[in-house]
């Protein structure tokens, strides 16, 4: 067993697999973000009826048999697709590596709601007789299910688990992967976040009861972070998984490097079940900057978490103003305006959509920002069209979640 640790090793992203409501790989996703193409549509959900949602259309049978789909979960399928795609993208010969040295760390907002609702619906047709409750329920609902399905599909025998972290989960998956690489626990990490949340009616019903579910006659205009007329969240499904490696390993194999994770932080508001606390969010951004040894003005793109709820956006904007003030060089965008809130996938998916900026210098816009709410004022929100910068060196991604869980990642340009 490898007992070496690598506390100072630089950790880089060398592969990306994703499915978003407007793209099933990074190229397609990026093109649609630059073209202003939304992925939000009308979606029928049990009991609640027609809602608006970000729905993915990746080919699940690309990497799974029909029986695997029948037995497993939607999020397991999303996870397998993203992990396989990430591996393909990395150029690593999957057959030649030691799969006991690969770790699977996937962030989830929640897990098991979809499957439990489905079973209750199933037995409702049998007068709620529990002898009709499926034996598949437990393997489908254990909290490690998404990552576990990946290990079965890809025959990975290293560690696997999910990180339950509300809507901060995508970034948390990456932080976990990075830490495990530095601890020498694995040589490759499949790290990121995944979500099947649009398949649980409960999430829509709960946001609706909270007055936080977006509505708009045009689905593509429903998700409106920072806009005066924002009226809530558009739920979405999706996944974003990165291959993380120690820089020395990546260089040795001549890997294409998307960027280096130079800063990360996570903390807790200790304030409220759902209402975010700007002070702790600002503190989380500062912690990440400190870890990266950067000043706020060093950040070129800040991808905001904003979900388009009334209060949530206001709170995050306070936190961003506190840290970044009137910095001229920091450009802010938001991905949920295109695809809705992909929950556990949000952090990695939204960051992935910005990583090509290291090459093309483009900051994708914030869609649907027609009338900026003055209380959401930030110095440089990119809207209307992409913003061309001369050079992008640092991208920061915010992802926050219920119970005041905050996570921030900073990725640095790496010149291959």
């Amino acid at each position, binding site marked *: 067993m490898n007992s070496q640790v690598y506390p100072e090793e630089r950790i880089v992203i060398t592969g990306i697999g994703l499915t978003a409501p407007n793209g099933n790989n990074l190229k397609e996703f990026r093109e649609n973000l630059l073209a202003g193409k939304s992925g939000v549509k009308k979606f029928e959900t049990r009991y609640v009826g027609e809602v608006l949602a970000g729905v993915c259309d990746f080919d699940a049978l690309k990497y799974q*048999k*029909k*029986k695997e789909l*029948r037995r497993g979960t939607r999020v397991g399928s999303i996870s397998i697709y993203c992990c396989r795609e990430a591996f393909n993208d990395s150029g690593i010969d999957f057959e030649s590596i030691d799969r006991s040295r690969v770790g699977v760390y996937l962030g989830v907002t929640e897990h098991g709601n979809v499957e439990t609702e489905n079973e209750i619906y199933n037995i409702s047709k*049998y007068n709620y007789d529990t*002898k*009709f409750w*499926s*034996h*598949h329920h437990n393997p489908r609902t254990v909290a490690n299910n998404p990552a576990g399905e990946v290990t079965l599909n890809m025959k990975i025998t290293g560690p696997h688990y999910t990180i339950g972290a509300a809507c901060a989960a995508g970034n948390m998956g990456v932080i976990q992967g990075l830490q495990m690489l530095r601890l020498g626990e694995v040589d490759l990490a499949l790290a990121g976040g995944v979500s099947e949340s649009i398949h649980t009616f409960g999430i829509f019903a709960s946001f609706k009861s909270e007055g936080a579910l977006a509505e708009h006659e045009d689905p593509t205009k429903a998700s409106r972070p920072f806009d005066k007329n924002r009226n809530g969240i558009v739920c979405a499904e999706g996944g974003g998984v990165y291959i993380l490696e120690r820089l020395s390993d990546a260089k040795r194999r001549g890997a294409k490097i998307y960027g280096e994770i130079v800063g990360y932080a996570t903390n807790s508001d200790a304030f409220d079940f759902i209402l975010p606390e700007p002070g702790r969010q600002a503190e989380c951004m500062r912690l990440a900057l400190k870890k990266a040894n950067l000043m706020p003005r060093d950040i070129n793109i800040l991808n905001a978490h904003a979900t388009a709820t009334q209060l949530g956006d206001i709170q995050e904007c306070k936190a961003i103003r506190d840290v970044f003030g009137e910095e001229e060089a920091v450009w802010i965008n938001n991905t949920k305006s295109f695809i809705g809130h992909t929950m556990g996938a949000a952090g990695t998916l939204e960051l992935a959509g910005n990583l090509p900026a290291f090459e093309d210098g483009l900051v994708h816009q914030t869609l649907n920002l027609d009338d900026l709410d003055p209380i959401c004022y930030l110095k440089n929100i990119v809207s209307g069209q992409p913003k061309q910068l001369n050079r992008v060196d640092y991208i920061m991604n915010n992802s926050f979640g219920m119970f005041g869980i905050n996570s921030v990642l900073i990725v640095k340009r790496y010149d291959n």
Partner: protein
Amino acid sequence: MNREEVRQAVVDILEDIAPDEDVSSIKDDISLREQMDLDSMDFLDIVMELRKRFNIEVPESDYQELVSMASCIKYLQPLLKDRQLAS
């Protein structure tokens, strides 16, 4: 149900729980597991589908009766003799 209809009922179930398999070529006298990719969870699916579709309870002690198509038919035909195959 006659013998053929019982066989068809089992084929219908197998088609659902093993959607990657070609169920049209199943040989009746060879065990299902030798011909198809079936594990213990799949057998529990067969039991569940018999319960759902025909209200038949197969006790654990009788699971071996479901080993091949021929044994399935032999076991199920008396239980399904008064039932219609759903169209």
